[in-house]
């Protein structure tokens, strides 16, 4: 973790972080930090970038981070030493986010805890998010800070630009535009625009840059706003406080039918990998077992009535259950930000099947999104006219 540096140094350097979801946003994230450095360089500033090494290999969905550092006073060597001779940084002037579901927290590694996305934002710093949400919608998930900072929202969707097939949808330069607007001290609008013109040579790119510049909306977040962060930060034991021989106790051999009936890895939950979560219409379920059978994260808990509860704490939101489910509308992937807790859906259903169904249908809305096979080729959306009628389940 970063060593604290003196005030003069603080004022003379700027730190930028981009948070993204692993492999399918890797190229996008790298482009943003790379472009920032080139632009700052064209302004005669000192700048360089690096990535959080321990994120490699960057699994899809798993939160990763890239950094860029800027200064007018320090040599590149000094900047490297002060800002980033380390695996991770502990504060940033701008924390940017390429997928707004990350505002619910990050857990990039085991024994790391779920950490707030705004953890590194400094006083009066900026949290820059691509999102279609309102500020209130996002702030309710954020950690309460003891100081005020700014939330900047660029209207847009998370771009999963892909790997071998890269979707060049302008999200990269859109972010540059937004940064030029909210942090002119980092990159200057004209220089940035010049750079985009020279580098990408297309009107769409310049339009995207402009749209980012013009559409970004900044709101002040006061110390009172946000939530009391519920997740503790694990402490790291001293060398003589844990067993020699690189030994870790296995997960206990425990299982019983019902929600949370299976013992799971307590120190590394994967829930923060989700962009969408599977929503189950238990009333439509035919108990074919396929969602449970094909879940690569062992998230479905068999229930006494032959249904399969979902443990959202561990679900990574891959969508395999929705894909394999043979019943129309029985399992649908829904935006993770529509949900504020990880409670057992089966228990809510059992308590009151009708209101559970009504509630999730509201959260599902009418819009259905179907990703194309090749990630970078985007997704097709469709509208359902009316939700499938509630089906009285025969008690099993």
């Amino acid at each position, binding site marked *: 973790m970063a060593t604290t540096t003196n005030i003069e140094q603080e004022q003379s350097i700027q730190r930028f972080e981009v948070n993204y979801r692993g492999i399918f946003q890797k190229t996008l994230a790298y482009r943003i930090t790379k472009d920032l450095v080139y632009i700052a360089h064209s302004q005669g500033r000192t700048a360089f970038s690096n990535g959080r090494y321990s994120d490699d290999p960057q699994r899809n969905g798993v939160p990763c981070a890239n950094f860029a550092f800027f200064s007018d006073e320090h040599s590149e060597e000094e900047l490297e030493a002060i800002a980033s001779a380390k695996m991770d940084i502990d504060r940033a002037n701008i924390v940017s986010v390429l997928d707004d579901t990350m505002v619910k927290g990050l857990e990039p*590694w085991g024994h790391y805890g779920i950490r707030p996305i705004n953890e590194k934002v400094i006083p009066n710093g900026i949290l820059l998010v691509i999102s279609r949400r309102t500020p209130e919608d996002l702030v309710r998930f954020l950690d309460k800070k003891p100081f005020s900072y700014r939330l900047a929202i660029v209207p847009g969707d998370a771009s999963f630009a892909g790997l071998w097939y890269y979707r060049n949808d302008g999200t990269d330069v859109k972010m540059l535009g937004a940064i030029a607007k909210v942090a002119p001290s980092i990159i200057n609008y004209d220089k940035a625009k010049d750079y985009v013109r020279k580098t990408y040579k297309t009107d769409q790119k310049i339009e995207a840059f402009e749209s980012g510049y013009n559409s970004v909306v900044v709101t002040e977040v006061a110390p009172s706003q946000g939530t009391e962060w519920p997740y503790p930060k694990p402490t790291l034991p001293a060398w003589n406080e844990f067993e020699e021989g690189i030994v870790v106790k296995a997960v206990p051999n425990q299982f019983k039918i019902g929600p949370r009936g299976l013992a799971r890895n307590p*120190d590394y939950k994967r829930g923060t990998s989700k962009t969408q979560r599977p929503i189950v219409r238990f009333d439509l379920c035919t108990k074919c*077992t396929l969602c449970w059978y094909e879940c*690569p*994260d*062992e998230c479905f808990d068999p229930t006494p009535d032959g249904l399969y509860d979902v443990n959202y704490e561990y679900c990574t939101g891959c*969508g395999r259950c929705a894909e394999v489910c*043979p019943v129309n509308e029985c399992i649908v992937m829904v935006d993770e930000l529509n949900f504020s807790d990880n409670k057992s859906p089966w228990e809510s259903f059992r308590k009151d099947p009708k209101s559970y169904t009504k509630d999730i249908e509201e959260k599902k809305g009418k819009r259905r999104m179907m990703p194309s096979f090749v*990630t970078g080729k985007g997704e097709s959306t469709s509208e359902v006219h009316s939700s499938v009628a509630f089906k009285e389940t025969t008690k099993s």
Partner: protein
Amino acid sequence: MTTELDENKETHQEEFPNAKLYNNVHKIDLQEFYTSGHRTCQGCESALVMRDFIKASGPRTVVTGATGCMYVANTSYMTTPWVVPWMHTQLGGGGSSAIGMAAGLRALMRKGKIPKEKINVINFSGDLGGGDMGIGGISNALQTDYDLLVIMYDNESAANTDIQATNLTPYGAQTTFSPTGTKERIMHKRWKKNVAAMLAIGHPNCNYVATACATFPPMDYMNKVKKALSIGGPTFIHTLDPCPKGWDFHPRYSGDLGHLAVETGIFPLYEIVRGEVRYTYDASKKKRIPVREYLEKQGRFSHFVDEDYELVQLKVDEMWEDWEIPGVAPIKGFLKVK
């Protein structure tokens, strides 16, 4: 898919009296011994390969994992998703680690230092570790008389190291070692190494070799694990694991890609029981789907043009129509001459 669930008539239970094979998904054991909380990608097929082999084997098992995705992703110190005893082994150490554990346990039991019981010994290695670097050690393991199983989970690249080509990467696939470029469209011109058949043909001690796909046909892979563990002696299973990360497709579709690999015939499914080949999906008899439908759903082939698809189709057809043992052994012997 759902229709195939309750059938699966072809388990051949009678040949494996010591194995309790599944013939109905509703009878699959519900407990997990590889459980939630691992750093695998969304939709990771290899994670299912882990989950299912240990479910089929049960808690009286010791496991080693060779360096690779299923090592690095699964166990982030000081946490673990494993319920059973598990240990890391070196990239090329898969076969040897299995020998070591099997020998150690047998010696201790024979000398009465620990109670006699059947403890399953399993190693998993990736295509880089198992198919390339570690193949000598696996070959040696298959020459012993120990009861052990080596599973090679094959995601057709070094997906843990930035997706580099291995000898099991299919022709033409983009990897960081075989990028497409302005001069070369196709950099990777090697055809996939035929590991399972090679090992079956070369090791007279080995009673069971199989290829598998984690979810298709349902229960097929888990039953193959049960057969391998019950037949006695060293055994080997090669699984094809569609990899959303390295193959560049949406994690939702890992299962579908697996089905397509089997149904297009590009990945033959079979088991070789005491030298007898049995197809668990016979792509020579059933109508094969054009391989293009499999390839064009993956970003790693996004640079393919018609002639590339045709070339791969040609090879797949050859595999099923010209090989002496279709889909298994490319040798063309007297049978074909006649």
